[in-house]
């Protein structure tokens, strides 16, 4: 257990945490703003990676490839949204159906289970090779950080518009939203599209970063996204009240998650157990609000003042 090994691994953890942070912001939009646990994302992450890698392999510009990946993610979100609203399927099940369908779609996009892209032959935006020893404007950590800040600015603006406010109202109280003339079905589809677009963008960056897209790369992504959301809220919830800062907290939560993951790996835990560990940690954190109200709530003052 050489401490230098851990320190050397940290920049990589930051880069991965940031890339997954975009994904976690997408999860935040469905889980916290729309109040839907959207399982589509496990499939969408791979779709984003697959589309980006395949397009770049065929000679497309990296930005174009990432843009199309984002659009593909939005399309997947729209499918879940329509399954949920137009076809009346419960949100969780709608997400699972899309996710399962996407497994085949992702295989067809890539033609096989795994597609690699060589950092020396293609002009990648981010890569695990671009963390140390590259000019700062090529540094992956900086580039992803800038993208996250830009995304947060755009999302902060959007959720302050009439449409964005109506979307927040939909997630908070859809009965009230409809009474105020808000098309809640449309808003749910829109929210799922934005969320899955972000997740696919994250997948596109992740594919470039690790140098390949794999049909299993999104497995359990929802849990990592939720972990980032929960960690971000637990650590920064008291300080960050503003919506924009809350999104930032989610991205920071994702970095903390990868820090902790690195430490656990460094401690020598069997890496096969990592997903079990993640699931257990998220389960405990999700239970905290219930436990708090059930076992630690202050007794109600009976008999009035």
């Amino acid at each position, binding site marked *: 257990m050489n401490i230098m090994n851990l320190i050397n691994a940290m920049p990589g953890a930051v880069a991965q945490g940031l890339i997954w942070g975009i994904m976690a912001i997408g999860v935040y939009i469905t889980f916290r703003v729309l109040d839907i646990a959207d399982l589509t994302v496990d499939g969408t992450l791979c779709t984003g990676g697959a589309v980006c890698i395949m397009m770049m392999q065929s000679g497309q510009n990296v930005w174009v490839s990432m843009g199309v990946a984002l659009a593909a993610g939005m399309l997947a979100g729209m499918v879940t949204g329509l399954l949920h609203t137009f076809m009346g399927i419960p949100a969780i099940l709608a997400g699972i159906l899309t996710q399962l369908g996407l497994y085949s779609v992702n295989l067809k996009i890539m033609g096989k289970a795994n597609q690699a892209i060589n950092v020396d032959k293609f002009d990648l935006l981010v890569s695990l090779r671009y963390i140390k020893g590259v000019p700062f404007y090529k540094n992956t950590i900086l580039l992803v950080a800038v993208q996250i800040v830009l995304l947060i600015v755009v999302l902060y603006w959007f959720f*302050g*518009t*009439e449409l964005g*406010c109506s979307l927040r109202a939909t997630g908070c109280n859809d009965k009230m*939203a*409809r009474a*105020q003339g*808000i098309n809640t079905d449309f808003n749910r589809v829109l929210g799922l599209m934005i969320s899955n677009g972000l997740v696919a963008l994250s997948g596109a960056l992740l594919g470039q970063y690790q140098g390949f897209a794999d049909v299993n790369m999104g497995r359990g992504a929802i849990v990592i996204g939720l972990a980032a959301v929960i960690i971000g809220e637990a650590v920064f919830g008291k300080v960050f009240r503003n919506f924009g800062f809350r999104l930032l907290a989610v991205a920071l939560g994702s970095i903390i998650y990868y820090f902790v993951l690195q430490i656990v790996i460094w401690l020598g835990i069997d890496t096969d157990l990592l997903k079990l560990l993640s699931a257990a940690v998220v389960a405990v954190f999700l239970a905290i609000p219930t436990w708090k109200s059930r076992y630690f709530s202050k007794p109600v003052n009976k008999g009035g003042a």
Partner: protein
Amino acid sequence: MLEIMNVSKTFNPGTVNEKQALKNISLTLKDGDFVTVIGGNGAGKSTMLNAIAGVWPVDQGHILIDGQDITKLPEYKRAAFLGRVFQDPMNGTAATMGIEENLALALRRGQSRTLRAGIKSSEREVYQRLLSTLGLGLEDRLTSKVGLLSGGQRQALTLLMATLKKPKLLLLDEHTAALDPKTAAKVLETTEMIVNRDKLTTLMITHNMKDAIVHGNRLIMMMDGHIILDIRGEEKKSLTVEDLLHKFEEVSGEEFASDKAILG
């Protein structure tokens, strides 16, 4: 202004839970009518309001507002004509959003939601002025989350939201039933103030016969999916609770059973 023509609604048709909630109901309201609706549990009062609001499609009949047939319009489109306050104070507002954000949502009822700013700074003055008419001190708490307000405050705010953009018809579904008597009286007073000020056509369900008599220019009583009493004009003005109970017995042939409706 409001025309309900032969509307029927059956819930869970073909099952053991089948419930014919509205049986061929017809009702016409004139502009500026303030109609109170009473009746026991399961009489169809809320069902009638929900039919107007479009919470679900009706089985048959038509609903017209100002001559426009809204029977087939989805709930969110009908909202352009309707202001609604629900029984549960939690239902009318978005708890995680601020007071001014809730009001801004209500101000845009009936408009398409664009990418313009969700709330303009010029609106805040209007909100402050209107909130001060409630006398609850909410005008100084524009950015407070609505979830922090009491039930009475939330109901008063919902009332303001329902009438911020003048509705063609105001639907009040027992909006004071969940409040303590003092708060209920205050919210009812606010209701009367706003309805009179804006000359709103109003349908108000209440469990309280006295309230039903004191407020409004017309009273209807429902039972078992029918409108069984319709009292208006001078007759309504001189009405007492005893009169109402007598009339109820005459029409229905049974005694009015609900203590809650009498004592309210």
